[in-house]
């Protein structure tokens, strides 16, 4: 070999002896006085030193400096939290009829981390459901950023059984997809309780940020009691800690948090009464409030027209939503609390009490010629011929406008404002429903702010008969009428069965004053404008109102148009505020029919039907009853005492204290026995 030959020649200067002849298996030692190269030795030691320090430093960095972070990542690899959904509490009426229920729905969820091929999987979802692929992708993209790693992303919320069966049979080919069982809300009474219950819908991003308990795909209350009682109805999700291996195979499962189902809540409302009131309205736009005057509990709260809240719970389409939103009849409006109306003559109940408290004698007479003049303005009484001489009671019974013009003029707007506000007008009643309106009690200050003009006397005239700027909600009126009967207590209207009486204010009037107004209402019901609600077998009282919507302008000699001849939007609102008592049961019923026309002719029959449901058909016809048949004043003088509490066996068999009237006084109603068959268990779990 050339290498060896050359080496021999340049070996001259080398001290290394090499004399042995090369031969196979003969050991050659060419460097007996060998010293290792110094630089080489240093190099090796330096390399080992570098190795040691670099690697120890790196291990320190990974295991100590970032150890906690990697430790958490290892935990995330290994453990997954699986949520156990708690079913939302049901909402029942006072006799346990179901108003809001849960039903089982099958959803399709995607765990992107487990999914080997997301585009193909999404395409498959699109094929199964016939949803456009773009839509599936949009849903995926928008939700992807909202979920934590390994949290299932709910792609399809509600599949029918046919689809579930098909998906289930093919699921094995699609890792990362799983069928999840969720509960959905259903409202068996649909329109009847739509405004009271509101609805639930899928949680949005803003709500999720505000409440860490919420997760993707959760249903939360958006309106009505579902919104107000969200925290109580929701329950608490449970958690499983699931140990998985690298192939997402489950190795073990540990319950770390027990789910708690939402509270089941009984309303004070009565489904059958609600239906009766609903039917009495006969589809008119309007509302009915039935309240227990001594407890503030609402027994019926009807607003019409309404909508089917199930379409919201299922996810409303844009078209349905637009139709509801733009409807001329405003079905989304809860007229009991969200609509304000001029109260018309019903307002005279407030004014009469205010007159009495400000020293007006009930016996003082005023002559009604049919109109009064103020400057060049003419203020008419509703009866063009006039009522003649009227004292306070006859003015109430006949609803004489002139009496109230004169007396209000004497006392002035400031006193009216003060008293009306003290009676709960101009502010929300505090009912457990969202978006309650305040109404309006006009005042000098308000007018100055609103119109930059001073108050004029004619406006006091208008306010005195519940016209002009005065605006009230029907529920405010019900609270006020209740206060007349319960000794002046302004109660918070209660929707829930198991809530204590809550007094939010007191009418600044003596018992004598209240009883005078109550007595006047009784007489109005027996022989006055509200005689339509009068009954022989019960103690009844009422006051009608016909509130003008537009200022009437008609020249002298022109007659007032009949309701049917007017434009719908210009027709009067029909009011009636009533109370009734039979066998120790007392109710306040306020009916308001929007653009209905006359209070006694339109609102009255509705109230009458409600009482027929409450008290049964009138046993003592004919009507009208003579005024002499009213019960003795001794009884009337005492305000209604709160009904005693009594225990009643609840359907589950355990006694549950409830604020109810004694059982024997209740009309017999079917009581559900136990849970209906096939009802959802206490909680649902995800089936992975």
């Amino acid at each position, binding site marked *: *070999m050339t*290498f060896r030959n*050359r*080496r021999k020649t340049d*070996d001259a200067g*080398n001290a*290394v002896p090499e004399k042995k002849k090369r031969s*196979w*298996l*003969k*050991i*050659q*030692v*060419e*460097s*007996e006085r*060998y*010293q*290792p*190269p110094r*630089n*080489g*030795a240093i*190099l*090796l*030691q330096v*390399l*080992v030193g570098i*190795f*040691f320090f*670099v*690697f*120890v430093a*790196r*291990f*320190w960095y*990974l*295991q*100590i400096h*970032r*150890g*906690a*972070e*990697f*430790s958490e*990542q*290892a*935990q995330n*690899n*290994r453990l997954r939290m699986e949520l156990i959904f708690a079913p939302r509490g049901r909402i029942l009426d006072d006799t346990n009829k179901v108003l809001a229920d849960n039903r089982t729905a099958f959803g399709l969820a995607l765990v992107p981390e487990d999914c080997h091929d997301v585009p193909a999987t999404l395409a498959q979802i699109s094929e199964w459901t016939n949803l456009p692929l773009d839509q599936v992708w949009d849903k995926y993209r928008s939700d992807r950023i909202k979920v934590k790693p390994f949290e299932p992303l709910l792609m399809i919320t509600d599949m029918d059984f046919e689809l579930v069966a098909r998906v289930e049979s093919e699921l094995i080919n699609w890792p990362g997809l799983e069928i999840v069982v969720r509960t959905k809300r259903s409202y068996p009474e649909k329109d009847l309780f739509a405004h009271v219950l509101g609805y639930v819908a899928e949680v949005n991003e803003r709500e999720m940020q505000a409440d860490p308990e919420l997760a993707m795909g959760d249903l939360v209350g958006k309106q009505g009691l579902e919104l107000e009682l969200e925290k109580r109805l929701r329950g608490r999700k449970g958690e499983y800690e699931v*140990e*998985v*291996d*690298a*192939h997402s195979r489950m*190795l*073990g499962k540990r319950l770390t948090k027990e789910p708690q189902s939402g509270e089941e809540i009984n309303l004070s409302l009565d489904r059958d009464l609600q239906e009766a009131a609903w039917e009495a309205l006969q589809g008119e736009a309007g509302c009915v409030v039935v309240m227990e005057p001594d407890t503030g509990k609402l027994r019926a709260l009807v607003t019409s027209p309404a909508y089917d809240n199930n379409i919201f719970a299922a996810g409303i389409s844009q078209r349905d939503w637009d139709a509801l939103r733009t409807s001329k009849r405003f079905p989304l409006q809860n007229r009991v609390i969200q609509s304000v109306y001029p109260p018309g003559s019903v307002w005279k109940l407030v004014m009469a009490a205010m007159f009495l408290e400000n020293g007006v004698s009930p016996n003082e007479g005023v002559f009604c010629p049919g109109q009064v003049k103020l400057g060049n303005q003419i203020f008419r009484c509703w009866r063009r011929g006039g009522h003649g001489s009227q004292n306070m009671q006859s003015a109430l019974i006949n609803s004489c406008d002139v009496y109230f013009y004169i007396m209000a003029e004497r006392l002035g707007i400031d006193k009216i404002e003060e008293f009306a506000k003290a009676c709960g007008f101009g502010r929300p009643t505090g009912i457990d429903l969202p978006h309650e309106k305040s109404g309006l009690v006009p005042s000098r200050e308000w007018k100055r702010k609103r119109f930059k003009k001073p108050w004029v006397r004619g406006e006091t005239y208008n306010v005195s008969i519940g016209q002009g700027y005065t605006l009230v909600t029907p529920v405010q009126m019900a609270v006020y009428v209740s206060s007349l009967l319960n000794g002046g207590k302004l109660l918070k209207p209660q929707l829930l069965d198991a809530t204590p009486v809550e007094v939010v204010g007191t009418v600044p009037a003596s018992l004598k004053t209240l009883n005078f107004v109550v007595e006047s209402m009784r007489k109005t019901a027996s022989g006055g404008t509200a005689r339509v609600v009068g009954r022989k077998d019960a103690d009844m009282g009422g006051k009608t109102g016909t509130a003008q919507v537009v200022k009437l302008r008609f020249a002298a000699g022109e007659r007032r148009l009949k309701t049917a001849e007017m434009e719908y939007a210009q027709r009067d609102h029909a009011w009636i505020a009533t109370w009734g008592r039979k066998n120790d049961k007392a109710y306040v019923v306020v009916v308001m029919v929007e653009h209905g026309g006359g209070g006694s002719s339109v609102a009255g029959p509705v109230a009458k039907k409600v009482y027929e449901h409450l008290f049964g058909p009138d046993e003592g016809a004919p009507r009208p009853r003579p005024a002499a048949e009213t019960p003795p004043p001794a009884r009337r003088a005492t305000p209604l005492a709160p009904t005693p509490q009594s225990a009643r066996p609840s359907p589950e068999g355990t006694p549950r204290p409830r604020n109810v009237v004694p059982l024997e006084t209740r009309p017999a109603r079917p009581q559900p026995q136990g849970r209906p068959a096939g009802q959802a268990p206490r909680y649902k779990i995800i089936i992975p």
Partner: protein
Amino acid sequence: MDKRLFTYLNWSLLLWLIALYFVGVGNLYSASGTRIESGLLSYAPFYQKQLIWGLCGLGCMLLTLCFDYRQLRNLAWPAYLACLALLMLVPVVGSTIYGAKRWISLGFMSIQPSEMTKLAMLVLTARLLSRDGKPLDWKNFFMVLAAGLLPVGFILKQPDLGTSMLILLILAGMILFHGLKPAVLKTCLLAVPCAGAFMWFVGMHDYQRQRILTFLNPGDDPRGTGYHILQSRIAIGSGELWGKGFGGGTQSQLRFLPERHSDFAVAVFGEEWGFIGCVALVTAFCLFLLSIFATAVQAKDRFGSMLVVGVFFYFFWQICINMGMVIGLMPVVGIPLPFISYGGSATIVNFTLVGIVLNVSMRRFMFKG
């Protein structure tokens, strides 16, 4: 055999060899465990096999001690040529596994000529460099380089980047130990980056380029090419100071860690023994290497010294590359960690090479008298 020989034996090297080997077997035992249900472990038979391979290795080591290492000098060229011939045969009769042609099937077993070439190159380089103690000039440098690059070219074609790189690195280490003329050294230091660039654009396959890109940025594709790096980092990092305890590694037992028996075995160790264990392991490797180094400087002839230096670099580079890969300091290259990773032939080769070092150490005073 002369009984005196054993008094000169490098006992500390033997000690560290045994220690590392048993740490490796113990670690394999743990790495073999797979959690199948809650609390249950099923063990793959890797650690048992490794014990058997260890015994075979021990046998080979004892055999190595029986003859004078200077006989190897005579075997250098024939072995080298034989390996070249086998390498040339691979493209013709080799069997393809995972897209690479590296094996020649002999029916009852497969041999990997590139593995043998490593050893043959080591011995040949030791022989070439032991001519004299002068720093290499250009001529001799190219001579050694040419002898090395020839088989490397064949191995690169297989393709087997890991082995070719390892051979070049061992060669480089031995040359540097031997010494170069300053001009040659300076030129080489300039040429290495150029060669790197050349490799990147010409010599590498796409998957190899991808590995390097992934190493630089493993988060780009956490479920794909970056998965190995990320999971092994998580495994080691989650060991924290004290580790999860023997058999307690979740990353390995739940199979998040890929290749946990072979290339990533040290990640299992890191997860279960923590920083303390890792420092101990690094220290053990350093002491093991220093024991080899001790023999290299004690050797009384240049061939023996160069042979031991070759063995030193053989272990040094593998430890650096494998552990560097596992802790994210180097791209993923399929090089096992000596004594810790599972591997039959690797275990036998490792024991044999240690046997050569022991051979050199115990015959270092043979020239006296």
